[in-house]
């Protein structure tokens, strides 16, 4: 029978200011950026960046929980191919990610509506805040 390699997934909650530092650690550990996604849960943004080890099948996720008006730095300076993930996050949820290398300016999916996946109340509150 073939050997099974299935370590448990690891979820690490970090501060938004630690994101670049922790991502750099992942890069040094030769982990692959496996996915990045945003969620809007209980009035806050949750940004998840997952890293995978292709040899040991380890899977680590860095989770940044931030207020809806906060901004986080892009990780494209460390993982250039994060550009599609980060463009998707900003376009679908309207979260602020600064300095994305190759910014599609909310036109990756060509959706006319702003932040279509953000709940209606959150969108209205955001608009009020901008006024």
């Amino acid at each position, binding site marked *: *029978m073939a050997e099974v390699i299935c370590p448990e997934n690891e979820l690490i909650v970090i501060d938004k200011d630690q994101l670049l530092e922790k991502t750099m650690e992942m890069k040094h550990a030769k982990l692959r950026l496996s996915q990045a996604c945003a969620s809007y849960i209980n009035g806050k943004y949750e940004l998840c960046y997952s890293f995978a080890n292709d040899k040991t099948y380890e899977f680590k996720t860095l989770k940044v929980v931030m207020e809806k008006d906060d901004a986080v730095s892009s990780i494209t300076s460390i993982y250039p191919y994060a550009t599609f993930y980060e463009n998707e996050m900003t376009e679908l949820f309207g979260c602020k990610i600064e300095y994305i290398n190759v910014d599609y300016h909310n036109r990756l999916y060509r959706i006319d509506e702003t932040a279509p996946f953000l709940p209606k109340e959150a969108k209205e509150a955001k608009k009020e805040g901008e006024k």
Partner: protein
Amino acid sequence: MAKRSVIPYGPQHPVLPEPIHLDLVIEDEKVIEAIPSIGFVHRGLEGLVDKRDYNEYLYVVERTCGICSFGHGLGYVEAIEHIMNVEVPDRAKFLRTIWLELSRMHSHMLWMGLMADAFGFESLFYQCWRIREKVLDMLEMTTGGRLIFSVNRVGGVLRDINPEQERIILDTLSGIEKDVRDIYNTFMTDYSVESRMKGCGHLSKVQAMELGCAGPFGRASGIRTDMRKRGYEAYGQLDFEPITSVFGDCYARCDVRIREVFQSIDLIRQAFAKIPGGDLAVPVKGNPNGEYFCRIEQPRGEAIYYVHGSGKKYIDRFRMRTPTFANLPGLCETLKGASLADVGLLIVTIDPCISCTER
């Protein structure tokens, strides 16, 4: 210095199976840079989590794509089952494995046909799709559907495979194995195929790792990663090793995918030899409360399914990261320096599934 110009490629193009747009910066017939652009079939399916409860949402997930449908449903239910600590009966795990491997076979054969069509070998294209029909027939016989099966549910499966169907599947697989062997010989030894694919779109192992490539596209460059090694469903009880190549060109991608068809046939035989009796599903009570990233090996590579629930009927967030999304940066890299005539071929070699990518 030669004059540079930009050629828009797609979304409507004879060689493209699905809509993707590329702005190709070219210099004399040579591609200098490719800038991808998607968004032609975005349907916002992930946003439907607040309209359908977590059991109904399974049917939305399955309809993301017609080719990877079974895998999407499986990834979603597995994530929910992990959050809810549901132990699926062994028989259901084996049945899921069998259907997933049949799905892989039909997906790879679809790709083989499209590849043959992309380099203008039309009779080979017909042969590939003729054999694929037999796989679809087996899926129809056991699940009732040819593309969207809806046999998964949280806690198990809805249908069984009886001994008569098992016999038919094993007999059909023997015939398919022989047919695919002939096709493999054509792909690998035919002079015109070889001259079209060998050395075309080379991507080294280091480049593939740097660009986060997944699935057969990455394995063709030597990345020895296959999510099935995680042992989910019945894979932990089956004997197999990831299929890789070291050449990293179109020829290697073709080689890896066709060898994976043989591997799937072998895995189905092993699964039928070891499948235990017993229940098909267990009753599930309550609602998912927690979050989990589930990773499975879809025909096109590693797919990730994220579920976040907070004990309610409706989950808070579902996110699907498909292999094509991960392979887009790799595609752009292989296009650099390629001849304009090879662009179609190179796009097809990543086996793009744009419907899954955009969801």
